[in-house]
């Protein structure tokens, strides 16, 4: 069975997400990966990727494009990275960002500091046998998570990978760097 994935295409590394999912789904005939800009792009999707970018900008454009309610009510799985993780939370340390409350967690923006503090590291992620090369770019981190949220990776700055039902959120960028194990884990998890 093919999987229909949409990538929220308002701002950020949209093309990288599209390429990564196309590659992860190359062996699943009938799968599609499409850009989501308008409400009418959402029906029929099994999953939605929320890319990295600036959460204040993306939040504003979600509102402007009338996407807030449809996204908050999205019934498929969501794969969120960086700014996407901020938007998936139900609480954030910045009143300008209106989050979608799809995962009960509190997220701090820019938890690592400025761009010079951005880093790459090999990270142990629950469910993976080998460490994952994680790239954090002005990344957020979750400071606490609600019940039913599984913490997949935690570092001194905070929680950086979570799973909640069919949703997964990462403070780093699995779409950069060519390692698709977390994409595959997410696609497996969609069936549960």
């Amino acid at each position, binding site marked *: 069975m093919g999987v229909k994935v949409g990538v929220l295409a*308002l701002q*950020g*590394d949209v093309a990288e997400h599209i390429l990564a999912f196309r590659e992860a789904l190359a062996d699943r005939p009938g799968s599609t990966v499409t850009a989501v800009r308008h409400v009418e792009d959402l029906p029929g999707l099994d999953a939605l990727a929320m890319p990295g970018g600036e959460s*204040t900008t993306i939040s504003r454009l979600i509102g402007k494009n009338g996407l807030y309610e449809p996204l908050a009510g999205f019934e498929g799985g969501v794969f969120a990275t*960086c700014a996407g993780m901020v938007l998936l939370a139900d609480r954030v340390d910045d009143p*300008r960002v209106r989050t979608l409350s799809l995962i009960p967690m509190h997220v701090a923006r820019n938890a690592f500091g400025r761009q010079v503090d951005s880093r790459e590291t090999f990270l142990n992620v629950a469910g993976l046998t080998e460490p994952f090369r994680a790239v954090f770019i002005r990344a957020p981190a979750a400071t606490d998570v609600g019940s039913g949220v599984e913490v997949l990776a935690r570092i001194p700055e905070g929680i950086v990978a979570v799973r909640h039902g069919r949703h997964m959120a990462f403070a780093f960028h699995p779409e950069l760097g060519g390692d698709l194990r977390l994409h595959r884990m997410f696609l497996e998890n969609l069936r549960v």
Partner: protein
Amino acid sequence: MKLEELRFGTELIKRGFASMQKGGVIMDVVNAEQARLAEEAGAVAVMALERVPADIRAAGGVARMADPQKIVEIIDAVSIPVMGKARIGHSVEAQILEALGVDMIDESEVLTPADEQFHIDKTGFGVPFVCGARNLGEALRRVNEGAAMIRTKGEAGTGNVVEAVRHMRAIMGGIRALKGLSSQELIDRAREIEAPAELVIECANLGRLPVVNFSAGGIATPADAALMMQLGADGVFVGSGIFKSSNPEMTARAIVEAVNHYNEPMVIAEVSKGLGEAMKGLDVHLLREEEVLQTRGR
């Protein structure tokens, strides 16, 4: 997480930062108030300056890096990334900007060049750089020096988009012209445009630059911004165009939306209504030779 496995300032991190800016508008600001207005309007980053390019043009004299106090004031005012400009070849201005915590450095022809032969060796920095270019060869020379992002030079501070269009067409056309060339011909082309062969080959394979490619230099209206997006820009820098317009707040918001909806004329029409006076522009052809900024650095 093992500490010895931490790596800072890698190519992936620097180019990744630039990727996160895609589809966005980066706005020139000269104080905390303008920075907050830009952030509220949906800018993905701000460029912290002492003066916008139109005023640099008017002031004349040697244009240098902004006062560090001004940059810190702007850094403290917003949560989005803050960029700063260093003079071409002025590695110490760049070191200062990095030490202040700016998120990206623009090695910019808008300031008076400090070195007429060499650009800054950007590979030695942990902070990513953006550089201006007028054509494919110039873009790839900057990438070879370590630039993580390219922008068209255009002609800053004129409010006239014609040069940005010329430069974007030259870069995109230069890449399209690589299609179908043999590896021997690609090496020959690399020599012709004075760019490293491996980067020309990489461009040919990717069908685009190996880094994010923004547009800058003369963008003054939502329509200008959308035009640059349609020509293939990944995003836009707006310099004087916002705070030299009669209604900066509306203009800033309108340009953000025009970039987001660059292929939807109805939306661009809607956001362009009632913006008042755009910045007064300059005819690029009437500039004296010494007033032209784009020829600085090559």
